[in-house]
């Protein structure tokens, strides 16, 4: 199981800021496909990915208790 975090528009689309989902051994890309089968996340593909608080590639393979965050284009400052 991994924790998935949503922010900003994605959080509103998902209706939740955090879900726990079975994704051990999946790549981030495969996790995205899985999420898109359950949630209406229009802009998921435009989000960057962070695994355990570091930006990661879509090919990154997840392990148990990883924290995967989808980072929509940022607008701080």
């Amino acid at each position: 199981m991994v924790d998935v975090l949503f922010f900003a528009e994605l959080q509103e689309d998902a209706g939740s800021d955090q879900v726990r989902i079975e994704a051990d051994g999946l790549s981030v890309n495969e996790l995205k496909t899985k999420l898109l089968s359950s949630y209406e996340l229009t802009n998921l593909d435009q989000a960057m990915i962070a695994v355990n608080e570091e930006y990661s590639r879509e090919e990154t393979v997840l392990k148990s208790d990883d924290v995967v965050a989808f980072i929509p284009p940022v607008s701080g400052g």
Partner: protein
Amino acid sequence: MDKKFWITQEPINPNDCIEKVVRHEAGAVNTFIGTVREFTKGKRTLFLEYQAYIPMAEKKLLQIGEEIREKWGEADTAIVHRIGRLDITDAAVVIAVSTPHRHDAFEASRYAIERIKEIVPIWKKEYWEDGTKWIGDQKENTSYEKDIPSEEEMRDG
């Protein structure tokens, strides 16, 4: 508050940042304050809401401080970003950079705000008179339509 890179829910006093970087070796402190502007291209903002992925945002602010230290060896940096509801004229972000000489302070401070808009996971939701919108583009040019730069591109930025 011992941290030099932090996210807060409270109003920011610029001196909280400035005091963290003033030191004997420094002759210059440049401070950048991003405030909530009421009008953007004629559209009126009522207030803003900022959200952050707090632990990662603080890590990325720290990373920006480290990047500045690499580029301008004697620079010392502090950055605070506020989240939650912000009203017009409230400070959203305060950056303070001290350096021995003023040129570097300006350059490094400018670098910091540009990097914040590239890599720090903080989001702004605009509350206008006629609706709301999560703002999605770090350079304030477009919103979501732009390709996302890779992390590598962003590091080279």
